[in-house]
C-alpha cells in the first residue's frame, strides 16, 4: 500500500510578490508622504473627543464621583467596566507580539506593530479609570508603597493594589517591547527622511542603529527576552483584573473561573479590536498585500475559539451556581438572565457567544466586510459582559433591601466616549509618524528572505541579485 504525499506549499505571508524595497516603500512612505487631508479630519474628530474626556475628568475632579450614576449598592459602574474593557482590548497586542513570537508564528509580523500600538493606547485608556474613579484623586498616590513618616503601607491584601502593579508592569513591558521592535524601523525612516529635524528625531529614537550584525544579534536577543517577559504578563494582567471581582464575596463575582475566563475574553475582545482597526487601515493605506485575508481568517479562528471559551465560561458559571447550592449565587445568575438587567445579559450572550459562531464558515471567515461587522459586535458584547458582571452582581446582592438599579449619567457616557478620543488621537499619531508594520521583521518572512536555489520540483534556479537604487522621492 502506498500513498503519494503531495507538497502543499504554505501560502505566502505577503501577497503580490513584493521585494524588500517595495515593503520598505509601502510602509514607510505612509510616514514620509505629506499628511493627507483625511488624517487631519480624523485627528480633529479624535482631538475633539479627547477634549470631551479631559472636560469630563476636570468636571469629575471638581464635583466628585457623584456626577456619575453610581449609588449604593452599585459602587462601581461604567468607570470600572471601561477599565476592564480597555485592559481586555489591550491584550491582543502583547499576545500577538510575544506569544506568537515565541511560537514562531510568522504571520504575526504583519500585524504585531499595529496591535502593540493598540495595546499601549488601550492600556492608557484603561489606566485612567481606576485612577479617576476614586473619591479623593489628590491622594491617589497612597496606593503606591511610598515610604512615609507614618510607616503606613498600602494593604497588600487588596486586589486593587495588585491591579496597580499588574497594569503598570504590563504597560511598562508592553511599551518597552514595542519600542525595541521599533528601533530598526526608526533607523529605516531616519535613513529615508529628507528633513533634518525628522532625521534628528528618528535618529534619536533609532539609538544609533546601523544594522550591523552585532546590532541585530543584540536586538534579537533583547526582543526574545522581552517576549519571554511579556508572555506571563499577558496572562497575569487580566487574571489580576479578574481578582478584583473574584476575591470579593459578592455573588457572581466570587468564582474561581474568573481568571481563565477573563483572559479568554480579553484575547477575544483584543483580536476583535485589532481586526476593526486593521480592516480600516489596510484599506486606507493600501496594505492589503501585507495584512491579507489569510491574516483575517487566522484571527477569526482565534475569535471563534476564544468566543466559544467565553461561552463555555458563561455556561459553567450557571452550572456551578446551581451545583454549588449557594442560594445567592443561584439567584444572581437567574436574575442576570431574567431580572432587571436581562437586556444586557442577552446582548452580551448574542454578541459574544452566538455571533462568532458564524466563523465556522470559511467563506464568512474570509469575508472582510462581515469580519468587520462581527469585530464590532464582539467589542460591544465584551463591554456588556463587563457591565453584566460589575453591575448585576452589585445591584442585586445578598440583602434584597439594598437592591437598586444602576443607570449611567451623561458624564459616564461622556467619559467613556472621551477615551476613544484619547485612543484615536494616539493611534492617529502612531499611524502618521511610526511605521505601522514591523518592516524589518516583515522582511524576514518574505520568500525573498528565505532564498532557495531550488524550486518545488528540485530544479536549480539562478538567484536574482538586485542592487537597490538610492531612495528617490516618488513623484
Amino acid at each position: 500500500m502506498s500513498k503519494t504525499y503531495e507538497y502543499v506549499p504554505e501560502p505566502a505571508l505577503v501577497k503580490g510578490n513584493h521585494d524588500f524595497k517595495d515593503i520598505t516603500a509601502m510602509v514607510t512612505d505612509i510616514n514620509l508622504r505629506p499628511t493627507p487631508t483625511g488624517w487631519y479630519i480624523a485627528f480633529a474628530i479624535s482631538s475633539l473627543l479627547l477634549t470631551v474626556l479631559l472636560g469630563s475628568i476636570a468636571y469629575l475632579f471638581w464635583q466628585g464621583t457623584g456626577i456619575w450614576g453610581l449609588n449604593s449598592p452599585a459602587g462601581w459602574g461604567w468607570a470600572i467596566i471601561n477599565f476592564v474593557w480597555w485592559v481586555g482590548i489591550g491584550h491582543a497586542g502583547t499576545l500577538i507580539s510575544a506569544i506568537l513570537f515565541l511560537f514562531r508564528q510568522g504571520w504575526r509580523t504583519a500585524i504585531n506593530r499595529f496591535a502593540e500600538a493598540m495595546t499601549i493606547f488601550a492600556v492608557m485608556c484603561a489606566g485612567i479609570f481606576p485612577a479617576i474613579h476614586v473619591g479623593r484623586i489628590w491622594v491617589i498616590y497612597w496606593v503606591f508603597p511610598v515610604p512615609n513618616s507614618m510607616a503606613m503601607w498600602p494593604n497588600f491584601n487588596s486586589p486593587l493594589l495588585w491591579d496597580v502593579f499588574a497594569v503598570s508592569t504590563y504597560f511598562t513591558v508592553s511599551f518597552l517591547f514595542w519600542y525595541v521592535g521599533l528601533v530598526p524601523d526608526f533607523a529605516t525612516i531616519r535613513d529615508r527622511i529628507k528633513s533634518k529635524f525628522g532625521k534628528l528625531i528618528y535618529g534619536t529614537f533609532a539609538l544609533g542603529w546601523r544594522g550591523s550584525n552585532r546590532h541585530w544579534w543584540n536586538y534579537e536577543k533583547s526582543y526574545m527576552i522581552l517576549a519571554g517577559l511579556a508572555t506571563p504578563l499577558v496572562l497575569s494582567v487580566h487574571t489580576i483584573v479578574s481578582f478584583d471581582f473574584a476575591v470579593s464575596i459578592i455573588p457572581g463575582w466570587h468564582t474561581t473561573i474568573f481568571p481563565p475566563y477573563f483572559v479568554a475574553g480579553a484575547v477575544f475582545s483584543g483580536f476583535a479590536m485589532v481586526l476593526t482597526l486593521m480592516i480600516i487601515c489596510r484599506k486606507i493605506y493600501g496594505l492589503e498585500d501585507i495584512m491579507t485575508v489569510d491574516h483575517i481568517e487566522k484571527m477569526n479562528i482565534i475569535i471563534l475559539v476564544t468566543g466559544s471559551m467565553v461561552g463555555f465560561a458563561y455556561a459553567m458559571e450557571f452550572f456551578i451556581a446551581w451545583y454549588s447550592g449557594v442560594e445567592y449565587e443561584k439567584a444572581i445568575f437567574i436574575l442576570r438572565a431574567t431580572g432587571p438587567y436581562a437586556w444586557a445579559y442577552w446582548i452580551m450572550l448574542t454578541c459574544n457567544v452566538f455571533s462568532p459562531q458564524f466563523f465556522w464558515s470559511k467563506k464568512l471567515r474570509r469575508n472582510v466586510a462581515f469580519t468587520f461587522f462581527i469585530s464590532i459586535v464582539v467589542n460591544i458584547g465584551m463591554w456588556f459582559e463587563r457591565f453584566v458582571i460589575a453591575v448585576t452582581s452589585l445591584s442585586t446582592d445578598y440583602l434584597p433591601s439594598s437592591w437598586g438599579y444602576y443607570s449611567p449619567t451623561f458624564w459616564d457616557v461622556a467619559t467613556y466616549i472621551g477615551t476613544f478620543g484619547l485612543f484615536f488621537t494616539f493611534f492617529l499619531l502612531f499611524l502618521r509618524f511610526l511605521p505601522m508594520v514591523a518592516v524589518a521583521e516583515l522582511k524576514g518572512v518574505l520568500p525573498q528572505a528565505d532564498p532557495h536555489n531550488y524550486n518545488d520540483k528540485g530544479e536549480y534556479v539562478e538567484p536574482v541579485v538586485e542592487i537597490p537604487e538610492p531612495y528617490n522621492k516618488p513623484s
Partner: protein
Amino acid sequence: MSDQSNQTTYWKSLNELAQNKEYKNFVEREFPEDATELSDQVSRRSFLRVMGASIALAGFASCRKPIQKILPYSRQPEDMVLGEPLFYATSMPFQDSVTGLLVTNVEGRPNKIEGNEIHPGSNGRTSIYNQASILGLYDQDRSRSPRQNNEPTTKDDFVSFAAEHFSDRNRRILFIDEANSSPTYHRLKSETLSEFPNAEWVTYEPFSDRNAIEGTQIAFGQRLRTVNHYDNADLVVTLDDDFMSPHAHRNSVENSVKLTSRRKVESTEDMMSRIYSVENAYTNTGSYADHRLRLKSSQIAPFTYALAAKLSESVSGLSAFSGVTNEFSNHNWINTLASELLSNRGNSVISVGLDHAPETHAAVAAMNVALENSGNTVTYLSVPFLNDRDEYNAFLNAVNDLKAGAYDTLVMVGTNIAFNAPADLGLAEALSNVETKIHLSDYVDETSRVSDWHVNRAHFIETWGDGHSFTGERSIIQPQILPLFDGLSEVEFLSILLNGELTSGYELVQNTWRDVIASDFNRQWESVLHDGVHLESAYTQVPVSISGMFSDSMSSAINDESINGIEISIKPDARIYDGRFANNAWLMELPEPMTKITWDNVALMSAATAEKIGIDPERSFKNNEVPLVRITAQGETIEIAAWVSPGHADDSITLTVGYGRNNIGRVADGVGVNTYPLRTSQEMFFQTANVEPAGGTYEIACVQDHHSLEGRDMIRTATLDEYKENPDFATYESVHGYEIPGMKEARAEGDERGPISLFEEQYGPEHQPQWGMTIDLNSCFGCGVCTIACQAENNIPVIGKREVGRRRIMHWIRTDRYYVGDADNPTAYHQPVPCMHCELAPCEQVCPVAATTHSEDGINQMTYNRCIGTRYCANNCPFKVRRFNFFNYTKEYLTSGDDPEIIQMAMNPEVTVRFRGVIEKCTYCVQRVNRGKIKAKIATGSRKPEDGAVKTACQQACPANAISFGDLTDNNSEVSIKKRNDRNYVMLEEINVRPRTSYLARLTNKNPELA
C-alpha cells in the same frame, strides 16, 4: 441676613472670636467656591496645613476647644470641664403633653437629646420628634424677629404695640391656640380671660384627641383622658390605632416601652402578650401585631359595634349594642376577638384611633369597662385644663363669629390655622373680618403672612416653660441656651399681652410652681429641675361607670355604615406631623417607616385599588417614576403620586398632611402636595372621594426598591408555640436543614467561632472589651428613631431628594422593611441594619490603602483621613451598610445658607465631619466607647467599662429597647446574655464574616384559630 446683630444674638461669649481676622479668613478659605485649595499645585504639606487649620477652626465653629485663642472663663462655671459634656433635664412639649428629656450640653451648646429615665413618658427613650428637635433648634429658617405687616421689626416695637393695644381691657379678643399642657400657660390663660371680659379662647389642633375625650363624655358623662397600660395587658386589640407611632399618639414612647416589655422572650418559659390590629393603612403597630386585619377607615366603626354587640351577649353593660347587626356581625374576627377578650377579662386593652368618631371611642370605652379592664389595663384620668365643652365645636363657632365680625383682635398662639384649618371654614374671609391679627409662631408661615403682627417663637430648648406628661407628671422645661433668634415663649408672649411688658419665662414658671411646691421652694425647685419631673403631680385617676345617657347617645351611631366606594383617609404625617416639622431635614429625609419614602407624601392604596382606579400597581425597579392620581373630594381637587402599599385596605386611600409648603424654609418648600384642602369641618378624617388617574408621573425617592425577602433568611420568625417546641428554630441548621458548610471541619480543629477559615483568625485580646450588639426583632417595630439618633450623634449629612432618589442615602443605620406572604395582605418585618462589625470583615481585606481596619476591641474602624474612596469596601460589604460621600455633602449641609454657623452648632464636636470622596459607616459610636473606656481606666484601671456604661445612640433612643450593646468578654453583660438566647442569629452566617451584630429572631403569638 448675616448681619452682625443676628450673630450677636446667638454667639454670645464667642462673639469676639467670631469677628476676628482668622475667623473671617477661615470662612473665606475653608471652602472657597468648591475645592480649589485641593488642586494639584498644593503639596501634601500645605494640604495638611490647610486641613489642620480647618480642623482647628472648624473645631471652633462647632464649639470645640478653640486652639487659636482661648479665652478662659474668668469664673469657671461649676461642673464645667472643657470637652466634657454636661447633661441637663428638660422636656419637650408636643400638643398637650411633654416628654422628659436629657440634653447633652457641650460647653454651653446643646447638641444631642436623650430620654429622661425617670420621666414616665420617656423611660429614657425618645421618639423621632424628640431626637430631631435639636435640629429644629438650629434651623436657620426659623423666624428671627417680630414682623409688622410682613416687615421685620423689633421685639420692643411689639411690646409697646401690645402694651397700648391691650390696655383697652374691653377689646373683643379671640384667642386661638394649640393644645398646651403648661400650668404656667393655663395660669396666664385664665388670668387673661378674667382680665379681658370680652375675650374668647378656643383651641384648635388639626389632629387632637378630641374624639377620645368626647367619647368618654358619651360613655361616662365626663371628659377624661384614656390611658392604656400595655404592660399589664395580655391581649391588645387596636382598632386603627397606631399607638406606637409618635404621629398617631402623643404618648407613643411610653406605649412602645410598655408594649414591647411584654414581648421580651428570654427563654421558652416566657410568655408574650397577643396583639390584634384592625387597620386601614399598614402602620408600625399593625406590623408589630400578631394578627392584622385590613379594613377601610369607615369600616372600623361598624366593626367596633359588631364586636360590642357580640360581647353584649356575654357581659353586662353593653346593652346599647345588643342586637346590632351589620356587615361584620358574622366576621370570623368578631367571634375570635370576642372569645379572646372574654377569656382575658381585666387583662386586655381595646383601643381605637383618634380619627374615629366619638361614638366609636365611647363604644370602646364601654367595652373596656364591661370587660373589667377599666382601672386595671385602662385608666381614665381627669385632666385639669380640659374645658367642659367640645373644644372643636367651640373653634367652629368662634370662626363663624369671627366671620360675623364679632371680634376686633385675633391672637393666635402657635397655631397655623391658615394652613391647617378645615377648608370649608372660609378662614380667609374670617381673618379679613378682624382688625388686628397677632400670631406667635416658629416660622413665618401661612398664618403669619396674613397677620398684622408675627412674633417669633422661641424653641423649647431655649426657653423656660413647664408641662404635664401624658399621665400628668409635671416637668419644667429648662433652657439649654439663650434664644438664638431672641424669640418669645408662649408664656412670655401672653405675659406681654397681659401686662404690657415682658416678664421673663423663668419668673413666670417659678411663680406657677410656687403653688405646687409648698415648702422649701428653692431646694425642691432645684430637685425638680435636676430630675426633670415632679412625679407626685400625676393626674388623678377617675372611677368611671357607664352614663345613663349612653344608649341614647349611641342609638343613631350604631347603625352607621361604611363608605361605599373609594374613601380617602387623611392622617398626620409620620415624619412632619401636621406640617409643624416640615422644615426639619432629618425628619424629611427619614424614610417613612412603612413605605420607606423620603421627601414626599403620597396617596397610599392597595394594589387592587390601584387597578380599580386604572393605574399600574407594579412599580418599576428601574426608575423612580410613579403615576399621579387626581383626588376630588368636597369640590377640592389635588394631584398626588399614587403609591401601592401592600396590606392597605382596599377601596381606601390614605393621605398625609403637612406638605406642599411655600416660603417656610429651604427644607419644607416645594416638597409634596398639600392635602389639607380635602378636609372639611365635618369630614376631618375620612370621606368619600373621586379618584382617577391624572396621567403623568412623579418622581419619588424611596430608599428601598425591593420589598420581598426573596425567601432569604435575613429575617427569621416563628410563632411562640413553634419556638417552645423548637427553641433552636433560628439557627442556620434549622432554617436550611443542614449545617453551615465548613463548620464540621472547624470543630474538628477546635474552633467553634465559625466555619473553617484558610487563616489563623485572630480575635481581639481579652484585656480589651470586645464590643458586640444584638437587635431584638421581636421588639423592633420600625419607628426609625435609631436612624435619627444616629444622625444626630454622628453628624450625618442630609443630602436631599435628588441624591436620595439616586440611592445615596447616608444613614448609618437603616431599617429594612420586608413584606412576606400574601401580596395583598402581607406581614411586614422590620430589621434595623447598622454596620455588623464583622470579625472577618470583607471590607477590610479589599481596601487598597488600609483605611478600614479592625481595632483591638473588635470595632471595624473607618479612618476617614486615609480613605481614598475606591468604594471597593462598600461593594464587598454583604450588608451594604457603607455610605459614600459622592459629593461634598457635608459642605452643602453645613456651609450653605446665610448663617451656616447655626447648623454647625448642632454638630457633635466629638465626631469628625466627612469630606467628599470618603466612605463612612456605623462606628458603634466609637466616641462614646472611648469616653467610656477612658472613664473606666481612670476609675478602675481596667479598660473595660461596666455593663451599661457605654450606650450607642441608637440603643439609647430605641423605645422598644430592641438594641443591646456591650462587652462580649463579660459573661454577665446584657449583650452576652442576649447572645446566648436561643433566638440569636447572624445574617449571612455561611459566608463566614462573623458579624459582631446579631439579631434575635422575631416571634409572633398567633392565635391558632386564626393562623
